[in-house]
């Protein structure tokens, strides 16, 4: 029963994915939007894990997605690898870069860490823009082969959302595992974690590397769905947008990043490009000031009002709280 409750976010998401796939199977544009939401959800979940769970705010997640996307693009178009071999490389290369980097960065304050990842994103952009024939420079790389298992938009919808559901399952497991509790302790009280003998730098770096791997997966999906990737596709502004998705959705809820990604990608589709930044910026400020727990936090608060209060069993009363609070409760 507890296992079922723990996986309720993944099960709810799976139901929505199957139903929406059945309803919109004939609508190419809706499936396009849905696939983009899934790709951004993966990036947002990576921020949710590193920021929501471990307290490390990264403003360079899109650069890890770009590294994953370029890795698979170069290997499949220039070295003749299959997209599946490209997947392995796209998921492994970002963590291989992220882990040693994180060992240096996790010593920094949260503010310095956020700014360092932002600078990292700028450096990756410049390298991609000036990578010559290897990266295609400003023009990027085209002609990336599609994935043979998902040649139709509907199949890609299920593939991309399947990756998101698996990630949500892993995230839910992480939150309720000993490793998740250790991360929470590192977030709330690093001195206590150190006193407990926890290897904080390794644990934080491994979490950062895992989130980079997730971004690599998002980059792989992006490159093989659009069959084209350029430096501007996954730039620093994408990193900031992904952070915005997480904050709007609710960084401390498992599904918060997915909800944020869905809301902002739909907005992105329906608003003129010139005013997007204006609305994104205003939305972020409003959420930070008015609803710091994001849409999921507001929803949980509203749902809580309709629940009967007296003589509630202890478990039910705890279920209103974000999951991270449940885990650190004695």
């Amino acid at each position, binding site marked *: 029963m507890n296992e079922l409750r723990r996986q309720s976010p993944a099960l709810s998401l799976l139901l929505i994915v199957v139903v929406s796939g059945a309803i919109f199977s004939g609508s190419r544009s809706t499936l396009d939007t849905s696939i983009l939401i899934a790709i951004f959800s993966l990036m947002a979940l990576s921020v949710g894990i590193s920021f929501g769970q471990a307290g490390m705010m990264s403003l360079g997640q899109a650069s890890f997605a770009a590294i994953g996307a370029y890795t698979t693009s170069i290997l499949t178009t220039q070295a003749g690898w299959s997209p599946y071999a490209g997947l392995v490389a796209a998921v492994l290369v970002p963590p291989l870069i992220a882990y040693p980097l994180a060992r240096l960065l996790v010593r920094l304050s949260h503010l310095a860490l956020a700014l360092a990842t932002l*600078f990292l994103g700028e450096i990756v952009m410049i390298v991609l823009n000036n990578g010559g024939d290897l990266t295609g420079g400003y023009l990027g790389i085209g002609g990336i082969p599609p994935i043979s298992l998902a040649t139709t938009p509907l199949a890609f919808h299920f593939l991309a959302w399947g990756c998101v559901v698996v990630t949500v399952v892993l995230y839910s497991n992480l939150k309720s595992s000993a490793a998740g509790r250790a991360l929470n302790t590192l*977030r709330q009280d690093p001195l206590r974690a150190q006193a407990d003998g926890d290897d904080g730098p390794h644990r934080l770096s491994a979490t950062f590397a895992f989130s980079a791997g997730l971004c690599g997966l998002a980059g792989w999906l992006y490159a093989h769905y659009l069959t084209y990737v350029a430096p501007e596709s996954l730039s620093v502004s994408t990193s900031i947008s992904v952070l915005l998705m997480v904050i709007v959705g609710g960084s401390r809820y498992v599904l918060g990043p997915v909800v944020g990604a869905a809301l902002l990608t739909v907005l992105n589709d329906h608003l003129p490009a010139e005013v997007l*930044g*204006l609305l994104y910026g205003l939305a972020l400020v409003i959420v930070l000031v008015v609803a*710091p727990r994001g849409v999921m936090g507001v929803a949980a608060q509203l749902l809580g009002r309709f629940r009967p209060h007296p003589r509630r069993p202890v478990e039910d009363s705890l279920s209103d709280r974000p999951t991270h609070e449940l885990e650190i409760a004695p």
Partner: protein
Amino acid sequence: MRELLEYAVQGALLGVTYGLVALPIGLIYSSFRVIDAGVGSYAALAGIVALSVGGIAGIAAGLAIGAALATLVALIYQLLVRREMAEPVIVVTATFAVGMAVDSLILWRYGTDPFVKQTFDSAWSIADVSINPQSIVNLLIGLVLVALTAGGLFHTSTGRQVRASADNVLGALLAGIPVVRIQYMMFAFEGLLAAVAGVLLVYTTGLDFTSGLHLTLIAFGAAILFGLRGPLQCFLGGLAIGVVEALVAGYGSGGLVSALPFVFVLVILVASPRIAEAGRP
């Protein structure tokens, strides 16, 4: 040797513009231990408004817009403080959001064209080094602003109140210092400094809707070079980054050299973890 001198001088004069944007970043960090990541965008909007309106009225409008935007950020900061959400990393996120909104406003209202105007028809030649007279104007104005800011911060009673508020808000409140008013005042002054930088930039290298984030990043690099210690250090940091950039661009080759200022800043951040340590749990 002459080539080296020319690169160094041109770099230092370019660095003046970085230093001018770094100055308000350092001021706000000294005052509240937070980073305002929207400062480059205030400068960009102020400069573009100044040029599009034109004349003294344009400059006044630009300065007013800079001060108004930073005051808006002060209001957001106060709201975050009231909700006990004013962690440095949250404040920097909120200021990024404001910067993003301002950049988008520039794109929406003024389009993608760059805004630039040359105030002098010809360059000066000093010791065989060609110098844009506007750069000398920027340098002089920059030095005056640094002197005013440092003097105000370290040699006036208001400056002492600002520093007292930065060190211990509760203590400052108990001592009768109007902390909130001082915070609004400092943000407005920050916006004014950024706007001056923007107005000078539009008459030097020019500005467009993409300038905001780039200016913030370079200026932050300049500000941390000497440890985010004070206005003079931030300004000198700008000069140093400008010189490094000019030398690398002059003697190096390929577009990859444009990454060097960012690599430089990343190395400093990693090598000196105490920099920007506010918010460390």
